[in-house]
Structure formats: structure tokens, C-alpha cells
């Protein structure tokens, strides 16, 4: 494992900056020239080909230092428009670098002009004053998921509900905290831990107080937990001041992670003294714990600040906190804290050891549950009653995805196996064609999933038989993308929706953001056209043919040549992921098509192989982007490009193993540094 990447990133930054400085004296005029001569003919404000108007970019180029508006609202609008321009530039740079634009048949850009675009983008949006940077670090609030985990850890109690799917609520039964504290809404990063989104979503304070009250009630009833926090199960009424101080200090160190100032702790102590005079020692102690848990020090993840506009490293303890919330959605455990506090975590080999240790812990399930669940969207299976098809079906389908993603982490497999693999977790009912062999269930799952039981009412009926790992031979079902869960969430209840499936693969797996057309002609029109032209004895027209005709117009084809083959290639999987060979009405199903590069496939499994040929780099890049966005709690920006590229180089040299992806993200300046504006 490459471990020499932690220290030298600053020198890399500097070297890159120098290198760029020397040959990027290009002027705005050159860019304007390229845009005008090659792009604006189609992408001006009147033609707006493909809905893209690049004329707005000219203004930005010619007038780079727009003066800040005086009014707050006006400046927000200006901010907004500069964001749009940045996004547009990113798009231009991407399609030009990939050679997708100008389109075939138009005047192509020569290498020098391509470079002009790339350099302009790099100087303006990737670098700042010629230097790489990591962007402003925003204060992060705990999400509901993290709040629940953190309270469990800090208090040593169990607050989550066992996984129970209930016919009454048509979904997973929620924990008390999930009932009381509202769900976080995902931000622009696509994840609910998006710092920006959390910063504009109001803190539900009453629910927060109720949550803490509930957690402390659970704590007070739990002798084991009390022993951990108090050092004894019952606090004697003659608890000495030293003992009380010690308990509170230890508790605050865990609850506040980076610890508070002396002032913060003194306040708690004086509160304790006051209360201890009025109430029992235990009541006083619980009240102090409550204050500690309601402090911003608990709810927000503070880092010490140098008010610097240049990236600087966070402290080892702060790094430990970042790491544990990334991998576990929980605070660091004792081992990680200790290594951070004695400074050892700064050593690259210690850090990589810790990453490996953390990925061996059952707590890594948060990466599957919280990260993959949100990224791939399968967390909806738990909560959206639309997907409920009975207790064991829904749970089995959810668990197939959860266990399969976890298998990547457990066995440090390639992230490309999300697309295709020769193993998969299958619930009992689902073995479609081909040969497969059950693999011994690893013990680690017993820890994570042991409380998944089939229940009726309050009574446990029988232990749940979870999906098991199978070695696949010759089936169509390798990888996560053909899992029952994904096939279901990308379909309507009773029929498949090839476009939804195609868009899902493009957005979630390949990382193309698909803007839905404002309004498009209905499929029915194409069907009518087909039916008009056919003679009476011809067989029924299949949905595939209708879709083909529907998207054959030029304006549609631009996107649909990417979308349709992906969705149509999965037509053999019905809305519940079951293999089928005919539509109702005996029309034969062909999962076949041609990718935009001209390569054809004739089955889902061939499609997956072609996907990995054609889109491999983009799939890997997308996966890294998604995980980085989750790790950093923000949308990936142009200035992340340098780190992103370094991660990509490193993982391609190591078979795209997910462990390496995680390690490389953690080693990147983005993860290790902060910057204050």
C-alpha cells in the first residue's frame, strides 16, 4: 500500500503551481477566441443548442472581478450566477477534454485550442492564485443518523431499533429517535451530511432536547452503561469532588470529541456544584450530562481555526474525528482517540493501520447503510411504503444490497464489482439460472445482523434467514446493478421503465448528471405510429421497439443514445428483478443494444462487460467523487480535481480496491486540511 503520500502533498502543490505558472500566461482573449470560433455558432443565446448557452461565459471571462454587491440579496444572486458559470465551465472543459464537443462533422479543436480551454479552466477554477487549495471548510452539524450513533457510543446504550419491517408501517419500524427527530434532507452533494444543506436547515431544537432526554433515560436504566460512564453502577451520595470532576471530565472528552475549553468545563462543574446542593448526586450528574449533550460542542464538529486562506492540516484529534465519522458515522473509539492524542496518528503507517482496523469493525456498516444506501438510493427500500411487498421480501431485498456492498469492504474488492462480479448475496428465493455455490457466511455478519428477526407483533416468530454469499457461474445477476432492490426502485410497480433504469446507471454509476428534458413527446405517439404502419397479422409491437422509435429524433438522440441501451439491456429483469423472457402477450424480450461507441451486447451480462470496457474510467471516477463528497460533507468542486486525479491514479494501480479508495481519500489534502475562506 502506498503510504508515502501523506507528507509530501504540500510540495506537490507547490511543484504543480510552479509548473503551471510557467506556461499558462494565456490571456482571456485566447479563450474568448476559441469559444467564439468553435462553440457559439450553436450555443449562443438564441440557438441554445441542447439548452446550452455559452454566451454568458464571455462576460465572465472579460470581467473576472465583478465588484461585490452591496445588498445581501443581490450578492446571493451574484454568487448563484457565478456558481452557474463555474458549472458551465466545468461542463465545457469536460466535453472538450473528452473530445465530445465540437460534435462530429463540425470544425474540431486542435490540441492547442483544447489546451487553452483546459488551462483557462485550471487557472480560474482549479487553482487559486496559481495554487491548489481545498475550499472553505464549513462547520458540520451531526445528522440524525450520526446523532443516534454518537449518543449510543457516548452513553454506551442501544438506541436503534432492531431491523424490523412491519406490515403496519409498510417499511422498517423506526427507532424512537427516528420518530421524534426529523429526517435530514440531502444537499447538493446528494448526501444528507452535506454541511451546506445542514447549515441552511434549521436545527429542530425541541426534538433535539427530547432526543437527549430519551437517550439519558435509557442510560439511567442501564447498569452496564452507568458503570462505563460513572466507573460504578450507583453513585454514592458522598461522591468526592475529585471523583465527580473526573467523571465529568472523562464524559466531556468523549461527548465533545475534541474536548472543550477550560471555561466550558468549569461551567459544567459549577453547574454540578449548584445542583448537587439541591438534588441527589445522580440527578445532578445526569443534568450535567444533559447540558454537555445539548452544547454546540456535541452537536457540531468544531475544529481549531487559524483564519487562513491557505490549506493547513487539522490536528490529529480532529483528523480522528473526521475519519471516524467518515468510516463509522460515529465518534472515534478509545484506541483511535489515544493514538490521536499522543500524536501517533500523524504517522502515515499508523493512519493506514487504523483505516484497516476500522474497516474490520462491524461499525463499517454505516458505509453501506448510510453512504451506499443514499448514493445508490436503496435506503428507500426501508422507508418508502411504495416498495413494501411483505416483510421478508422487503428485508431480504434490502439486505442483499447492504450485504453485497459490505462484501466489497470486508474483502477489499474492486469498486468495479458494483457493476459486475462473480459473487453476490442472494436471499433464498432468488437463484436465477446458471450455477451458483453458497459460500460460508462470515462470522462478522453475526455481530452486525444478529438482531434481524422475523417478528409478529411483539413476538419473535423465528430468526431471520439472511441472504447468503453465492459464487456465481454463468448467471446474469453479478454486481449490484441487477439486484432485485435496484431493479425495483428503477421500475414502476407493475412494469419496467427502461429510461428510469438507464438514467439511474448514468447518474449513479457512470456519474453523468442527466437533466430531464422540459417536456417530451409521449411513448404512445410512437406506438400509434408503429401500429398505423403495420399490417393486421403482424405480431404485437414490443415496448423496446416503441422506445426505439420514440427516441430516434435527433434532439432526443443526443441523450437517449446513452440512456436507452442501458435500460433496454436490463429488460430481462422484471420490476421485481425476476428473470423473464417474454412480455405479457408473448412478445419475446431481447436485452440487446449498442452503446454509443458502437459495441453491441445481447444480454444483461454482456451489457455489464461492455459497460466496464467503455465507461471504466468514468465509473471509477464517479465512485471516488461520490465517496469523497460523502467524506467531505460537500459537493465536489473543480478545485478538488488535483486530489481526485491523484486518487484515481493510485487506485488504478491497485485494481480499484475499495480499501485503497478510502485510504487515498483519507490521505488527500481535502480530507486532512482545512481552509477558512
Amino acid at each position: 500500500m502506498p503510504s508515502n503520500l501523506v507528507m509530501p502533498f504540500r510540495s506537490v502543490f507547490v511543484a504543480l503551481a510552479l509548473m503551471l505558472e510557467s506556461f499558462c500566461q494565456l490571456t482571456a482573449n485566447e479563450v474568448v477566441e476559441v469559444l467564439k470560433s468553435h462553440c457559439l455558432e450553436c450555443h449562443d443565446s438564441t440557438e441554445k443548442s441542447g439548452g446550452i448557452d455559452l454566451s454568458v461565459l464571455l462576460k465572465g471571462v472579460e470581467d473576472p472581478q465583478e465588484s461585490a454587491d452591496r445588498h445581501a440579496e443581490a450578492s446571493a444572486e451574484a454568487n448563484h450566477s457565478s456558481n452557474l458559470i463555474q458549472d458551465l465551465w466545468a461542463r465545457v472543459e469536460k466535453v472538450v477534454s473528452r473530445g465530445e464537443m465540437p460534435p462530429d462533422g463540425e470544425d474540431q479543436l486542435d490540441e492547442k485550442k483544447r489546451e487553452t480551454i483546459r488551462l483557462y479552466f485550471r487557472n480560474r477554477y482549479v487553482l487559486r492564485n496559481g495554487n491548489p487549495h481545498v475550499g472553505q471548510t464549513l462547520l458540520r452539524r451531526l445528522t440524525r443518523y450520526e446523532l443516534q450513533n454518537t449518543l449510543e457510543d457516548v452513553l454506551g446504550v442501544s438506541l436503534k431499533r432492531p431491523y424490523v419491517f412491519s406490515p403496519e408501517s409498510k417499511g422498517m419500524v423506526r427507532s424512537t429517535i427516528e420518530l421524534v427527530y426529523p429526517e435530514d434532507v440531502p444537499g447538493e452533494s446528494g448526501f444528507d451530511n452535506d454541511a451546506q444543506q445542514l447549515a441552511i436547515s434549521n436545527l429542530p431544537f425541541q426534538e433535539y432536547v427530547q432526543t437527549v432526554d430519551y437517550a439519558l433515560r435509557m442510560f439511567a436504566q442501564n447498569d452496564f452503561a452507568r458503570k462505563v460512564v460513572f466507573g460504578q453502577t450507583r453513585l454514592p451520595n458522598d461522591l468526592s469532588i475529585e471523583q465527580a470532576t473526573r467523571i465529568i471530565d472523562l464524559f466531556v472528552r468523549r461527548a465533545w470529541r475534541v474536548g472543550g475549553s477550560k471555561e466550558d468545563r468549569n461551567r459544567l462543574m459549577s453547574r454540578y456544584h449548584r445542583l448537587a446542593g439541591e438534588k441527589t448526586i445522580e440527578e445532578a450528574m445526569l443534568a450535567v450530562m444533559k447540558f454537555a449533550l445539548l452544547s454546540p460542542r456535541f452537536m457540531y464538529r468544531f475544529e481549531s481555526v487559524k483564519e487562513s486562506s491557505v490549506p493547513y492540516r487539522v490536528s490529529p484529534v480532529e483528523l480522528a474525528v473526521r475519519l471516524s465519522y467518515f468510516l463509522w458515522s460515529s465518534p472515534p473509539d478509545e484506541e483511535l482517540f489515544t493514538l490521536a492524542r499522543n500524536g501517533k496518528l500523524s504517522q502515515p503507517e499508523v493512519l493506514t493501520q487504523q483505516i484497516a482496523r476500522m474497516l474490520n469493525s462491524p461499525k463499517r456498516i454505516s458505509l453501506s447503510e448510510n453512504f451506499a444506501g443514499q448514493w445508490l438510493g436503496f435506503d428507500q427500500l426501508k422507508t418508502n411504503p411504495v416498495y413494501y411487498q411483505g416483510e421478508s421480501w422487503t428485508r431480504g431485498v434490502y439486505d442483499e444490497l447492504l450485504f453485497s456492498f459490505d462484501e466489497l469492504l470486508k474483502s477489499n474488492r474492486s469498486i468495479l464489482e458494483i457493476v459486475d462480479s462473480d459473487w453476490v448475496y442472494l436471499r433464498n428465493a432468488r437463484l436465477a439460472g446458471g450455477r451458483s455455490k453458497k459460500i460460508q457466511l462470515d462470522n462478522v455478519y453475526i455481530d452486525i445482523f444478529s438482531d434481524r428477526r422475523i417478528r409478529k407483533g411483539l413476538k419473535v416468530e423465528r430468526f431471520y434467514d439472511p441472504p447468503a454469499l453465492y459464487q456465481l457461474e454463468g448467471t446474469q445477476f453479478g454486481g449490484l446493478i441487477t439486484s432485485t432492490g435496484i431493479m425495483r426502485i428503477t421500475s414502476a410497480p407493475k412494469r419496467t421503465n427502461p429510461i428510469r433504469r438507464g438514467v439511474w446507471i448514468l447518474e449513479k454509476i457512470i456519474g453523468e448528471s442527466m437533466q430531464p428534458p422540459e417536456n417530451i413527446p409521449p411513448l404512445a405517439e410512437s406506438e400509434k405510429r408503429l401500429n398505423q404502419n403495420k399490417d393486421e397479422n403482424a405480431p404485437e409491437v414490443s415496448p423496446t421497439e416503441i422506445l426505439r422509435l420514440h427516441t430516434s429524433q435527433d434532439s432526443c438522440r443526443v441523450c437517449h443514445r446513452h440512456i436507452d441501451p442501458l435500460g433496454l439491456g436490463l429488460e430481462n429483469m422484471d420490476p421485481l428483478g425476476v428473470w423473464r423472457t417474454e412480455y405479457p402477450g408473448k412478445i419475446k424480450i431481447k436485452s440487446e443494444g449498442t452503446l454509443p461507441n458502437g459495441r453491441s451486447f445481447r444480454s444483461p451480462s454482456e451489457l455489464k462487460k461492455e459497460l466496464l470496457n467503455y465507461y471504466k474510467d468514468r465509473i471509477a471516477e464517479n465512485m471516488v467523487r461520490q465517496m469523497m463528497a460523502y467524506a467531505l460533507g460537500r459537493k465536489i468542486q473543480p478545485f478538488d480535481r488535483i486530489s481526485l486525479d491523484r486518487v484515481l491514479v493510485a487506485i488504478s494501480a491497485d485494481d480499484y480496491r475499495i480499501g485503497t479508495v478510502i485510504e487515498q481519500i483519507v490521505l488527500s489534502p481535502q480530507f486532512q486540511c482545512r481552509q477558512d475562506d
Partner: protein
Amino acid sequence: MSDPSYLLPRRSFLRGAGVAMSLPLLEVMAPAIDGTDRLSASPGRVRLCVLYKGCGVNPSSWDVTGGTETSFQLPKLLQPLAPHQKDVTILSGIDSDHRANGTHVSATLAFMTGKVKKSNYRQSQSFDQLIADEVGKETPVHSLALRGDPYIDRNDSSENYLSYDRVGDPVPVAANPEVVFNQLFRGFNNPQHRSKTKTVIDEVKESYEAVRRRASRSDRQVLLQYLEAVRDVEKEIAKFSEVDRQGRGENSSRFLPPTAARNMGERVQAMLDLIAIAFWTDTTRVASLMMAHTESRGIYDFIGVNDEFHYLSHFVRNRRVIPNFDRVNQWHASQLSYFLTKLKSLQDGEGTLFDNTVVLFGSGIKHADYHSVADLPLVLAGGGGGQIKLGRYVRYHHAPNGNLLLKLMQVMGLKKTQFGNSTEPLPGITERGTFYRDVVDDGSWKILSLSDKEIVVIGKLQVRVTAEDPNLYVILLSDGSHVEIRAGFGNINGNRMDLFAGSVMTVTGELKVKERPLVITKVKNYQVLKNVD
């Protein structure tokens, strides 16, 4: 369905229609101090409730045809309002911000702000929040933002919100009726809980101060939300204490918490019950409920509809969905009806709660498939403290929705003169309006030219959505005949024809069918001559 009256022990409710006002409300509700009746129709005591259903409607089932301002037939989708026909005012011809045309998200954003801004960014404060900042001063709870849709939309978070606060951040929506119930009628109604929370608040404010002093500039920006949240709770506690001091709080302990909702229908009804009781006890005066958002994948299986709502709403492109789409929309109207019945059953001052409430019901989209934001489907109900003229159908001519919101703010006692896209306070709400009539046939509607391939015709455009023919438009002619437009979705959409239904226009189109009625298969161009008389 659950028993709709579970929120109150039956005896507290009205004992039969004949003695509808028998509940000794004033004993509990009026201020104990001087006994003056502050429950009479003073503008300060009017409540506002917005009921939003996403996804638009099928225009042919929604639109009122013919009639006059005071004499008209309820359209199909509003049939459930029949018992209340004299007590609702149907509004037509009100447009949202036109930049929202064709989109899910902006249509939602503009509904209560009257203004499109990029989603996921700070918005303008919504009209309900501006109102709550004023009238909420006197009530324990500032306002309620609720949702009935069982799940949040993850593609674009802005679809989940209707209300935006002073700085333009979305107001969190509560999804669980039991939690809302506890906040309204348990929690701070209990003096012990108040004082306990007060202690907590004092402590956290101190510790916030200490933290803030050491925080960086940008951290402080984020931390402000913490302080704001704490302050809001503090205000609420103070207001609950005041209610207690006046002896009004006891009432709340008599309410029974709702039972767990088994489906979306029960959840929506529980939320409506909660709003009614919250208004009645003057716990809050402003509420909004998102019954379904605009990309709702909710399933109305409890009325036998098993397809996703958003899928059904695309009734042109998805075939044979209109009957079920209409049923879901009728169900939404029936919820309005249910709510109005409930408001009428509760005594408030001299009249009922209905008399002192303004209810705005509607969607930010009209044509569910074309996502047009012109002629929004809107119903106004409730007396608004005797201010609102009910039992009418009022037709406007492309009035911006900001005008309506501005007018409602004035009804609620605010002294505002401009809001969002407003040009003036909407006339015709507190007094009879200008009733724009259908364009009258002046005898000139006819075929102007007809060749083998092309037709030019002048006449009145009408949408005629039917289950079999979801995209049919016709042009009515003076001789009683009509020309059909059976053009592709793209053609109609490209021309945005749906925005001009009801107008007289000249249409040039390609012709295929030669028998009568003639059929235009592609609209080449058209010119609107006249919208209204």
C-alpha cells in the same frame, strides 16, 4: 379510516348539529382577566391554512365551465365540496411566476413566495411566514409546517418545502402527527416541563456564548442557527406560560393523542385534525400542509389506486391513467371538504372556526403533464373573520399569484403593499370581483382557408381531456361545429398551447383527415386574438 373525532373526547365536541354552538368554549379560551370577548371578528384572530397538493390536475376535470360569479356548477374534481359550495370561492386565471413553467421544483418554490429562485439556495420569505411573524406573536406556537407525503424527495430537496423563513431557509416540515400533537398539546403545556426546559435553555445559551466567542467567522454563521433555534423555544415557553396564566391551557390536556397512521390518507387526516384543534385553541394561527409533493411516488391504495401519484399525473404521456389521476385529485378535494366540516363544527367567538379562518387549497401546477403554471387550480375557503366573500367562482386574467398572496396577507392584518411577483392586492376577494366572462362568439369563428394540406382557422381553443383522448384540443366555430387538434405532445408543448385554453385564436395547421370534424395534426403557428370579454 380512523374515527375522525379521536382528537377530542366526544363530549367536548358538538352534541348534534342543532346545538352546534353549545360547547362552552369561552370558559376555557377567553382571557380570564377581564372577560372581554376578544374572540369576535378582530382581524388579529384570523387563522391561515394552506393545503398544497403537488402534481397539478387534469384541466378538463378541474375547470368550471360556463356560469357566473355566483351561479356555477362544481366541476368533477371539486364534487366533494358540494356540501360547502356556498362556502368556497374558486379562483381561476391566477398565474405563478412564468419562469417556473415546465418544472416541478420552481412551481413548488413559487407557490408561497411568488418568486422563482434557484432551488437549494436561500429563497424569499414565504407569505405564511411573514404572516406568522406578526400574528404568531400572540400564540404559543409561531406556525406549523407539516407534510402528509410519506417520504421526502431526494432528487431536489426544495420539492419538500412550502415555507421559507426570514433568511430564506426552508422551514422544517413535521411528518409525524404524534410528535406534532405532543408539541402542541403536551410538552410546554405542562408547567414542570416548561421550567425544566427553561433551565436547560439558560444553560445552553451560556455555553453557546462561550463556544461562539472562540469560533471562527464562518463557524459563527452556521452556529447562529443554534441560537435561533434556542430562542424560538424560549419564546414558545414564554407564550405557553402566558396561555397558562390566562387559564387557557387546561383545555389541551383533554385532547387525546392521535393513533398511529396506517397510510397516507390517515396521516393527512390526522394532520388536518391537528391544524383544526391548534387553531381552535389558538395555539397557532398559521399552518401549511404538503399533502403530496410534486414528484410524489406515493400510492393511494387506500382508495384503490395502486400507481404512483407522479406517474399518474403525466396523463398525456402515460396511457389510461386519467380515471385514477382524477380519483386521487378528488380525494384531495375531499380532504379539503373534511377540513371545512371540521372547522365549521368548532365554535369560535360568535361564530365558528370556519368563519375566522382563511384556507387556501391548490397546486403550483395546472396541467399536470405540461407543468404549466398559468391558471393555477386554487380554492379559497373560510370567512377570514367575515372579510372573504364566499360562494363564488372568480375569473381573473393572468393575475400573478403574488397578488393573491399579498391580498391574503392584508386579510391577515399585515400592512404590506408588495410581495413576490405582485402588481396589486388581488381584487375580488373581500368584495365582488371583475368576472371575466368567456369570450363571446361574435359570429366570426370559422375556417378562413382550406387546402389539401393546410388549414387556417379562427375560433376558441378548448382542452378536451378524456380518458381515451388525453391530448385533444378543439377549436370551436360559430356554426356550432369544431376543428380538432390531434397534434403530438411535442408540438403542443413546444407551442405551449395549454396556456391559452379559452382564448380565441387563429391557428394555421397541417391537415390530415378530410371528413368532418377536420383534424389538425400539426400546429404550424397561432396567434391569440382575444382571451376574455
